[in-house]
């Protein structure tokens, strides 16, 4: 039964990924844009899970990596090759995580949540100050690549983020992270190098969001600091991860699709009550199904098994 379900899952993922891969060849710009957004959220949410689902350190500031990546592409625009700038955005985000990780990961629970939020806001306002000191309110990118190229870059990032979480989740490293999530002092006493592992998870979870930010800067072609460091980006990725549930790659995909579809439908059908209904759906999930969609599926399966 479990094997059947997991192979059904693999087939569904393969079909979905294959469909997304060829979408720009058949779809119109609207559909490609929708696909791009879905891929972006999958990449961000999978990356967020590498740190927060695996270790329990809930980052409320992951947008800082996205924003730094976008900023790097914008300030190096037409001065370095674009591919290099995108890779550089990932390196910059990872390096920033390595720099702030050691002090920031010393605090746990709500303190880490607040601190991660504070760090991202600090970076946002620092860059705002730097930009306005330089006399720029916003920037426009001329000559950005077309939508198809942007789409394929994002597709690659979504696949990479999914493979990263899959690799981490199944590895010895991942087991160490889960152990420290469950009880950090016990994990450390049993030989898990918790300081090094937490930092590595933080760095790994930062790199892809940096590149996603870089690619999305090309999509919007104009740059406003407040927009690429918008805390809603962090919050949305968290909501998608929690809606999906679990700590493997299925949760972020299910959560992303669910939240994306529900918000699109609501936005079209009920533009005025859209945010109200979405809020109620999210609150309902937290109250009724804290394990997310995967948690619901698992409990249904467990009931089915005990009933049989």
């Amino acid at each position, binding site marked *: 039964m479990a094997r059947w379900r997991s192979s059904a899952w693999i087939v569904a993922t393969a079909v979905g990924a294959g469909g997304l891969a060829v979408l720009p060849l058949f779809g119109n710009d609207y559909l490609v844009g929708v696909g791009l957004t879905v891929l972006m959220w999958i990449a961000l949410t999978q990356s967020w899970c590498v740190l927060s689902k695996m270790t329990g350190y809930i980052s409320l500031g992951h947008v800082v990596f996205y924003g730094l990546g976008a900023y790097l592409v914008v300030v190096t625009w037409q001065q370095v090759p674009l591919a290099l700038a995108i890779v550089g955005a990932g390196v910059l985000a990872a390096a920033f995580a390595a720099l702030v990780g050691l002090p920031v990961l010393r605090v746990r629970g709500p303190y880490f949540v607040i601190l991660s939020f504070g760090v991202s806001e600090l970076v946002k306002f620092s860059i705002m100050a730097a930009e306005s000191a330089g006399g720029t309110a916003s920037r426009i990118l001329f000559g950005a690549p077309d939508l198809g190229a942007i789409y394929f870059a994002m597709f690659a990032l979504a696949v990479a983020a999914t493979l990263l979480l899959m690799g981490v989740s199944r590895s*010895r490293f991942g*087991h*160490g992270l*889960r*152990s420290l*999530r*469950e*009880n950090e*002092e*016990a*994990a*450390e*006493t*049993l*030989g*898990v*190098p*918790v*300081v090094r592992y937490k930092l590595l998870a933080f760095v790994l979870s930062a790199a892809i969001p940096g590149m996603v930010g870089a690619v999305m800067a090309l999509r919007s072609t104009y740059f406003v600091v407040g927009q690429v460091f918008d805390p809603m980006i962090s919050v949305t990725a968290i909501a998608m991860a929690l809606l999906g549930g679990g700590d493997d790659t299925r949760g972020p995909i299910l959560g992303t699709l669910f939240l994306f579809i529900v918000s699109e439908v609501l936005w079209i059908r009920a533009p005025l009550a859209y945010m109200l209904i979405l809020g109620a759906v999210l609150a309902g999930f937290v109250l009724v199904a804290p394990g997310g969609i995967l948690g619901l599926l698992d409990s249904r399966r467990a009931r089915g098994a005990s009933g049989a």
Partner: protein
Amino acid sequence: MNDADSAPLLEVRDLGKRFGGLTALSGVSFSVAAGETVGIMGANGAGKTTLFSLIAGNARPSAGTIAFAGGRIDGLSPDRICRLGIARTFQIVKPFPGLTVLENLRTAAMFGRAGLRDRREADAAAMAVLEEVGMAALASAPAATLTLAGQKRLEVARAIATGARLVLLDEVMAGLTATEVAQMLDTLRRVRDARRLTLIVIEHVMQALMKLCARIVVLHHGERIAEGTPEAIGNDPRVLSVYFGTAA
């Protein structure tokens, strides 16, 4: 080089720990030979658990040295000390509640001195420990669902699964029924002999301590006030005065 036969496995010298103005431990010295089982006795607040925290690296000593298998370990991080071969249990149990019993032990087998990086090997070693401590049937149960006795047993099993040479047992029998204490004693003796472990045991259950240990160290207000065989400790006037308040 050290003579492995004569040098003690663990040597604690002039160990001290202050928390702000409070002195939890001061000037404590003792050594433990390989294969020995040593008991630590003392009233609440005597510094027993602090002693374990210093040896296992969960806290840093304010003074003194700790040597294990010939090398200094004081000031090392807990994970390094574990990989060197010292494991401890926690008096207030610290299971990984969301993981299964087997997964709890997998962490120990993968990351401890055993260092079994391959998951299958780690799980096989973990399963062997579970059989030894009589928990094999609970392998796939979430740790959160265990009874207190089960969680105490899990603490012991996890410590053993690290592949440690020296295991520090912190009140693994406290709160258990008489039957459960007898079972735990039996398990400890069996596993110790099979794996040739060296044990340091903190226990309030005096009879258990007497049955398990050849030597007992008594702490009082952070200082070592007596050391000897269980019989000698039972007749020591300082110990009696501390425990019963007699003017000896």
